[in-house]
């Protein structure tokens, strides 16, 4: 039973959504819309589940004095501060927690946004170290990858233009800016498309297995 009911739910919901694609009549059409909202609501509960787990994990860490436990106080402090600010800000401005001037919005601007952007910008440094370390012509495949990357990198700068602008007219397609566009439009599209078609089939067959209940590792044991 513990397994049957989830399998029935998955099958009915999945099959209903597939059918709704072809049957524009109610109840299929309406169910399609309604299920989207339901999904949305369940996803919102997942955030609450996440918050609950966070409290549990860090509370436990502090209680047991695990390694680095004082930092868990920082996490919990930030969590409770943001949660309180958000619930308060929403309550006083008709549900718009991000109303300009609210504490919640201020925390977002002062702390959330800068840290997020900074973490993201670490990529510029890691791209540099990866190009030094990993982009080496070790094999024929690696060489092809390297050459394509090289043309695109140079092609995005004015240097690309100046480097090859001397090439005479009938061979102008060899100029780096032209080569840049060509690589993107043809070999790149060919590769991306093959990946996309493959992935689409992977997703289709995995979805089918899920709907039919063949793939059920996510449900765990009985």
């Amino acid at each position, binding site marked *: 039973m513990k397994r049957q009911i989830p399998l029935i739910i998955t099958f009915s919901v999945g099959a209903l959504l597939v059918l709704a694609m072809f049957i524009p009549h109610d109840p299929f059409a309406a169910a399609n819309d309604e299920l989207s909202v339901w*999904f*949305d609501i369940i996803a919102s509960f997942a955030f609450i589940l996440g918050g609950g787990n966070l409290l549990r994990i860090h509370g436990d860490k502090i209680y047991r004095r695990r390694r680095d436990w004082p930092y868990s106080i920082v996490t919990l402090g930030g969590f409770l501060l943001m949660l309180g600010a958000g619930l308060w800000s929403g309550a006083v401005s008709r549900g718009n927690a991000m109303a300009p001037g609210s504490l919640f919005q201020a925390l977002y601007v002062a702390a959330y946004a800068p840290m997020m952007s900074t973490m993201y910008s670490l990529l*510029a440094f890691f791209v540099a170290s990866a190009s*030094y*370390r990993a982009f080496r*012509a070790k094999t024929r495949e690696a060489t092809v990858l390297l050459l394509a990357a090289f043309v695109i990198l140079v092609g*995005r700068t*004015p240097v690309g233009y100046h480097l090859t602008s001397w090439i005479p007219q009938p061979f102008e397609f060899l100029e780096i800016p032209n080569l840049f566009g060509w690589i993107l439009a043809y070999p790149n599209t060919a590769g*991306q498309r093959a990946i996309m078609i493959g992935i689409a089939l992977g997703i289709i067959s995995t979805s089918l297995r899920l709907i039919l209940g063949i793939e059920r590792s996510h449900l765990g044991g009985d």
Partner: protein
Amino acid sequence: MSLLDRMKRIDRRILFLLMAAGVAIPLLFRPTLTVHPSPIVSRVFDKIESLPEGSKILMSFDYGPSTVPENQPMAEAIARHVLRRRLKLYMVSAWTTGQAQADLLIESVMRTDFTDRVYGEDWVHLGYKAGNQGMINAIFGAMRNLYTTDAAGTNVDAIPMMRDVQSLRDMDLIVDIASGFPGVKEWIQFAGDPGNIPVAGGVTAVEALLLYPYYPRQLLGLMGGLQGAAEYEAALVAKYPEYRDDSKALQIMGPQYVAHLLIVVFILIGNATYFAERRRQKRGRIAGGRS
């Protein structure tokens, strides 16, 4: 230790430092550069340019602060263009962080350059709804299923420009400014393709490549990364020169170029070291065989 060994074992922190300097120094001097719009960007510009007055443009803010340097200039350029042409702008967001970005845009565009355009008649901010692609699917069927109010909590029935909007099909163009999932791909899959609504995108350079296969049949046009934003700004400035000073993307192309060249140099040195090392090993092997 030989130069080769030193290059091989270079501390990556030195590379980090070089990168930081490569961006910071040209940022201080700000060289000026010229940019020409490529066809994939022009198609978006031309579409907005050709729509009759009063046409409806849905703009989705599907990004967050982390990609502001790339996405915000695109969003601003589009918003300026749309309002300037007296088209109607509907702003939504499928990302939790998108709503705040739309607010920032309202500050920097609507409240500064277009104070004569009326909220609710020329533009409306509907805000974020959760659900990712499900959200797009839901408003494709019926807008009011999710958007019963705008971002400020006003009932949509009280908003004039929402009266003749039932679903996404009523839009003349969807412009998605995005940096990941859900993004342009989902707008194509859940709105553009099923409803035959033109979808244009403004995405980070990373996402752009992924979208090329949809162009031009399923995707009207695309601004890819800062370069794409700069190209759109260039097209806008060519037609409406008064926006020259608002062109944020055009102004930071200099550090971009230096950083690119730096990475090219890293790749070259990395490979030179690798080949020198390989030659040394080969020579060593031969010598070893002889003894």
